[in-house]
């Protein structure tokens, strides 16, 4: 089982031309692999995440996926701010066909939200939001987690628990932080000016990225 990119192109029309995000990307991520994708701000990382997650169509080329892959876990993907964290967790459980109460229980255990779990998500801090999103996705249980950067999973109790949980599954982490990628991934790719290059050696990827 794997996720494969086959000659993937993506560009957007912008004023006076097109902005190119990907020009012919190839790559294969096998089940259980932990891959970091590094890119500077504005290199199109978030778009790449959405293409990998199958929620945005590439301009041409194909994504072939045979794993269960999480939704792109960023800040607010489909979370309704007026609803409580628990209600949002129930909604996600329903659309992925999981038992609602066991998902809520697992989120309560893992997210460290305490009483806030019953409060509207709009009252959360950004750290709490990302903990909720990650906890819900872990409760649904995917082969591979697709995580957009800016997640407050630093070296905290939650961060360590998260790292431990994904030990047994795959991870695609898109980030501008080499430190985060080094901590969570075993392999990395660099996205620069529309070219996505996979490196088998993590150090080589980080060195290339740092030299950009």
């Amino acid at each position: 089982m794997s996720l494969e990119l086959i000659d993937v192109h993506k560009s957007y029309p912008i004023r006076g031309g097109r902005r190119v995000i990907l020009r012919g990307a190839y790559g294969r991520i096998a089940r259980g692999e932990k891959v970091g994708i590094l890119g500077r701000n504005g290199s199109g990382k978030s778009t790449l995440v959405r293409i990998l997650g199958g929620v945005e169509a590439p301009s041409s080329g194909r994504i072939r996926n045979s794993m269960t892959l999480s939704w792109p876990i960023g800040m607010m993907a489909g979370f309704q701010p007026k609803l409580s964290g628990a209600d949002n967790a129930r909604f996600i459980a329903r659309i992925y066909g999981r038992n609602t109460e066991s998902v809520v229980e697992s989120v309560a255990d893992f997210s460290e939200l305490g009483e806030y779990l019953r409060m509207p998500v709009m009252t959360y801090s950004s750290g709490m939001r990302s903990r909720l999103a990650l906890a819900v996705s872990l409760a649904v249980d995917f082969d591979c987690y697709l995580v957009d950067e800016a997640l407050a999973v630093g070296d905290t109790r939650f961060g360590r628990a998260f790292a431990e949980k994904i030990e047994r599954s795959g991870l695609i982490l898109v980030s501008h932080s080499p430190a985060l990628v080094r901590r969570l991934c075993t392999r990395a790719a660099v996205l620069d000016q529309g070219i996505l290059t996979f490196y088998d050696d993590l150090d080589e990827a980080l060195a290339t990225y740092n030299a950009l």
Partner: protein
Amino acid sequence: MSLRGEVALVLRGARMQRRVIGALIIREMHTRFGRHYFGYIWLFFEPLLLGTCIGLIHLLRDSPSTFGPFEFYAIGYVVYFIFRGIINRASSAITGNIGLLYHRTITLPDIFFARHIIETVSVTGVLVVFLFVLFAINGDFPENPTKIALAMIGMALLSQGIALVAAAATEAVEGIERGIHAITYLALPVCGMFFLVEWLPDWLQELALYIPTVHIFELLRDGQFGSRFRAHYDISYVMGWIMVTHLIGLAALRITRQRIGLE
């Protein structure tokens, strides 16, 4: 793939779609009204109140005719309310729910189907209340409730088809949603809610019967008091409209989905 395999795939897809639509209904109810009973009551009261007002205005103003003006206009308005409610909300459905598309299991039509089910069920509840109250007050029961139910279903499906097209059009051309609101208002006098085809001069009858909602209102009134007038409607004409609008709407939404960039 074998036929059996394909059938299994379609069934699995149908089960997933049912699950997603169910989840969306619960989410939409919680979001629109909070977890308070008052919200649910309002969903029900809005058409009830407006229907009652329109019915009363006509009851006081109109000379007594062969038809009870209250049941004619109040129930007519309730059916029009489906049309208005579904189509007016269409243009905000995609922008308001764009975050949901982060989940591959949710498709654009699912979002619409869920809302339309809420709208139709609540308005049907109001219709049933009206029918029973009228029965309790003056013992009038509709001559053919099946026809009334068919008219409701027809109105919901026709509105859904138009809503799908309207939503795709809104995504393609910015600003078009203002026009859509204007159209649902302008449709009020011509949609068939305020008249029977029989009351119109011949030349106008022919024109009126090009409007699909006119057929639906005729069917509704045939169900209410069919023996007291000659109804003009053609169910296959309405079904044609429903099919064509659904085909165009679903196809256009497919193209829309390919184009949507999230955030």
